[in-house]
């Protein structure tokens, strides 16, 4: 008998009484009068990220280049190395065309797109829409572009949207919620931003 058969057999033999799945629709999760305001507040406080509300007369690229100018540059020309595959963004690295994922570790700024924002905890759903997802983690700083009409109240609503959508996990079988910069408190409990992944996150609401 294979290990699988043995494990399943033991489980079936040893399980005593069984329990039904509860009705999760009766849960009344928290909602907000203004989910966008709540999302902005959570993002800029507990999540430790920055947030820019793009004006209608600005281009996304202008906003991104302004963010880049405020960062310590590592490019030979004294400029930031930007990585992105979003149309209209001037970038030096493209996660679709780099030959190795580790090349994106050289990016000063990664620019990616989020699809759902969650007001209760500042999470942003980022389905993989690029060949190398290392851009989402390995870039020193991250800009996440999010539509303000894509903000929901809580995680239940977010997961319901993901489950109902046919858009995700198609070409690339990965998606992640990111709520801000990488952080740790492993040394004596002192909170430090910039553990292994992005040191800083700027959310651009469009």
């Amino acid at each position, binding site marked *: 008998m294979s290990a699988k058969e043995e494990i399943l057999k*033991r489980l079936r033999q040893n399980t005593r009484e069984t329990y039904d799945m509860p009705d*999760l629709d009766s849960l009344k999760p928290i909602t907000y009068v203004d989910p966008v305001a709540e999302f902005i507040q959570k993002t800029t406080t507990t999540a430790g990220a920055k947030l820019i509300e793009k004006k209608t007369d600005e281009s996304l690229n202008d906003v991104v280049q302004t963010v880049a100018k405020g960062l310590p540059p590592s490019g030979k020309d004294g400029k930031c190395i930007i990585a992105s595959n979003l149309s209209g963004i001037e970038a030096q690295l493209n996660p679709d065309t780099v030959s190795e994922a580790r090349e994106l570790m050289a990016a000063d700024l990664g620019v990616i797109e989020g699809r759902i924002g969650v007001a209760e905890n500042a999470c942003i759903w980022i389905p993989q829409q690029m060949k190398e997802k290392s851009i989402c983690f390995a870039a020193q700083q991250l800009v996440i572009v999010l539509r303000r009409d894509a903000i929901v109240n809580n995680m239940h609503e977010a997961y319901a949207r993901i489950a109902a959508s046919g858009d995700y996990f198609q070409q690339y079988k990965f998606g*992640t919620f990111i709520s801000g910069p990488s952080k*740790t408190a492993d040394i*004596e409990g002192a909170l430090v931003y910039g553990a*292994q992944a992005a040191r800083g996150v700027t959310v651009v609401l469009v």
Partner: protein
Amino acid sequence: MAAEAYLQNDAVVTRHDQTFFGVRQKRDRMAQALPEWEDLREAASQIKKHTETHLADYLEKFEQNATKNGVHVHWANDAEEYNRIVFDILSSHQVKKVVKSKSMLTEECHLNTHLEAKGIEVVETDLGERILQMMKLAPSHIVMPALHVHREDIGDCFRKQISNFNEIAASYPTPHDDPNDPTFLTYVARMHLRQQFAEADAGMTGANFGIAETGDVVVCTNEGNADMSTSIPKLHIVSMGIEKLIPNYKAMGVFQRFVARSGTGQETTVYTSHFRGPRPGGEMHIVLVDNGRSEIIGNAEHWQTLKCMRCGACMNTCPVYRRSAGYSYTYFIPGPIGVNLGMLRDPHKYYDNVSGCSLCCSCDNVCPVKVDLSTQVYRWRQELDSLGHADPMKKMMSNGMSFLFNHPALYTSALRLSPMVNWVPSPLINLKLNPWAYGHEMMKFPKKSFHQLWKEKKL
């Protein structure tokens, strides 16, 4: 013995106590901020009860979906089989270095020692775990494993063991007076670990959850180390205990809201990553590990420990854990859940931990999936005698007390005479024959007993 040395220093113990109680308080604030908190706990408990008692069906469904997504699924009866499977995958890819995010399952199975003995370098990438690995220490907590280590020791360890420490230190832009400043040391670790990610041939992660309906593996971290480990190397191996399954995304909504709120008092972990298949040009393997879990489901008294999602809330609230730290326990998972899991692993080896509980029941009230932790500890204590591990001294005392309480005349005289103990010189009382004297001053017996005061109407 590590525990004894640690506990010698009162200030250290107090700091440990306060640090973890601080986390517990943050958790309370999270709970109070959500009106639906108790409903969520009940829902989480019921989802887990349902899933664990239908686990064979859900595992089959999970395997089917994961396979459909292009993932290789393996099954391991025990630690030995698990270690062999992982080694075989790694060696068939000629892996020399593997980067690994935190997984209690790999600790349970001693994977690292197994791989290292076969010449594969294993690099832990969670900062706390990396510190412990470099210092050759065991975790003292399941979520914050190195919080008991002091910055000076971490700094010394980094300076000795990170070969390009000086080069990294020179690139740190912020002036700092303390050579062991946590922000600086975290920067050093960041640079050191990013080099490891770039060099590694494979990445390993645990699994916080497996979703049967879609075949997703969900990994939650704050550092992003699980994502770095799986975004750069092309081979990803997931180690997952079979009890980690949940049915679907609806259930995931409940658990995502709990993991960080319960464990560290944050609204969410920074990263909640859903791995549904291999990277372009990569490979993904999931090893489903039993290692005793399918026996636990048949244990009428203790099967609900399978609901645990390893958030650590029970240890943060536990007064015994907070004041005695992780090394006081003989099982590698400390605190209330560790006491119970240790007994399920091997009661003859880990029975000593069941006395590390004051039965205050605080753990039962914070557990997000309502594992009845203290009730289970109590049950284990009742079973100690039949396991042959009842403490003979305590047994004698219990028998003696039972005799005393059943003979009122004797009890009353004993009570009347007890203040005489106060006149016995303290070295005689606090000698080694009296186990109470370990770590305690002998108490003063009052002149009059409660009974006497009551009879004299002085209460």
